[in-house]
């Protein structure tokens, strides 16, 4: 059992990055998230799975306060990043989002050059002192996103001219450029073909070395492939949260089992 390929997949740390306790989200009159408690580990890929409308994306967007942009959305409960309440009055969501980066479902590069896309975050947060430093950050980020070799000769070409998979990796590079501690990914591969998906998945696995990655996915296979921890959401409840191997071979809750085996009920 101590085979290399098996130990590699195991959770490597017990450091908790994000603690959520008793989280409730209301959209107007709809109770979208009910009593969610979860501990997200550092340097671990955590997958949120569940049927459409189960609240997994909503909960993900609570973690960097992207729900703030929606007027009718109300978040209650405690969400702590490294022990600090992110919904505290003193927290500016702008600073929070530099620490908790996000990658979206559809690749959404800015209609600017590849360079400007990556440089945007560091620029607005004033992370670099001069052009040389900025160049370095852009290169590092693109390398981390496994895109550098493909785009190094055309950094000033438009980001929208890349292929779908490259665009998504560019978005990841853009998120990585602000040196976040947590990366949230909202169905990052749903618009990509299988090869591009595989590249992004490989990238996610590499990112685990430096970040805590939380990924929402519709593809259970993807959750199984990339994550070490899996949370199953159903009708706004967190039904089961466990090691990915456990969830996919022998889940404890019958709702989880029905969902992952594709059964009615």
């Amino acid at each position, binding site marked *: 059992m101590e085979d290399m390929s098996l130990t590699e997949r195991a959770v490597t740390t017990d450091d908790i990055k994000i603690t959520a306790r008793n989280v409730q989200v209301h959209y107007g009159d709809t109770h979208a998230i009910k009593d969610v408690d979860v501990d997200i580990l550092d340097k671990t890929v955590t997958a949120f799975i569940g049927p459409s409308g189960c609240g997994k994306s909503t909960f993900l967007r609570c973690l960097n306060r992207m729900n703030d942009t929606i007027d009718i959305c109300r978040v209650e409960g405690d969400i702590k990043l490294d022990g600090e309440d992110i919904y505290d009055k003193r927290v500016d969501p702008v600073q929070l989002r530099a620490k908790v980066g996000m990658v979206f479902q559809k690749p959404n590069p800015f209609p600017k050059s590849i360079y400007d896309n990556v440089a945007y975050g560091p620029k607005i947060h004033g992370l670099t002192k001069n052009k040389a430093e900025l160049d370095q950050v852009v290169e590092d980020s693109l390398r981390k996103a496994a895109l550098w070799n493909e785009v190094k000769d055309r950094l000033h070409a438009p980001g929208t001219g890349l292929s779908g998979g490259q665009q998504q990796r560019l978005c990841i590079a853009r998120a990585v450029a602000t040196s976040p501690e947590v990366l949230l990914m909202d169905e990052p591969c749903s618009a990509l073909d299988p090869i591009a998906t595989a590249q992004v998945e490989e990238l996610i696995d590499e990112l685990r070395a430096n970040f805590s990655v939380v990924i929402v996915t519709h593809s*259970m*296979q993807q959750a*199984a492939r990339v994550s070490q921890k899996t949370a199953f959401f159903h009708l706004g409840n967190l039904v089961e949260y466990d090691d990915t191997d456990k969830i*996919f*071979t*022998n*889940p404890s809750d019958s709702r989880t*089992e*029905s969902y*992952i*085996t*594709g*059964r*009615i*009920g």
Partner: protein
Amino acid sequence: MSEHILSAFDRDLEAVQALVVKMGGLVEEQILESARALEVRDLELAEQIRARDRAVDELEEKINEEAARLIALRAPAARDLRMALSVIKISASLERVGDYAKNIAKRTQVLSDGPQISGTATAIRRMAGTTEAMLKDALDAYIQRDPKLAADVRERDLEVDQMYNALFREFLTYMMEDPRNITPCMHLHFIAKNIERMGDHATTIAEQVIYLVTGEMPEDARPKSSSVM
């Protein structure tokens, strides 16, 4: 457990399970027939048993193909994945049981030339009957997803082991009485050993049923009688 949203998945699972049941029925028959052929020294029946083993082998191949297809095309998870895996293991066990039955038939043909060892053939048949019942219950437990029955089968392996131990001592006595008995007794001993192994395979199948239903292999050691060796 409710049905799959994709009904073709259900049909595939049912089809492969039907093959396992069919194979199980065939193997059970092989066990009983081989014991009977030994008892009544029916060479023709022994020949038939040897020929029928090919059908068992073919079924095993078919089940493995189906299971591989299921894994490749349906990407099963959890219970479905355990089902696909257990099907492969169960068919492998059944195939081994079939091989033992064939081996018994082969030895029956050799034994028919030699002297009769009184009483032993009947004892072997009883042992085969018990083993067959174990296998039948293991397969029933499989069909009904009944871990209790499977656990029961596991317990009963002890019985077969004890029967084997008794026969072993009996054969030793015969061989010491008369060296001419050595050849038939050696053959009979191997037959008894084969049946004991069949019991082990029935136990393996029962364990697969427990794994299939609960998701965990039984952790306590198999019940074992003190070894004769």
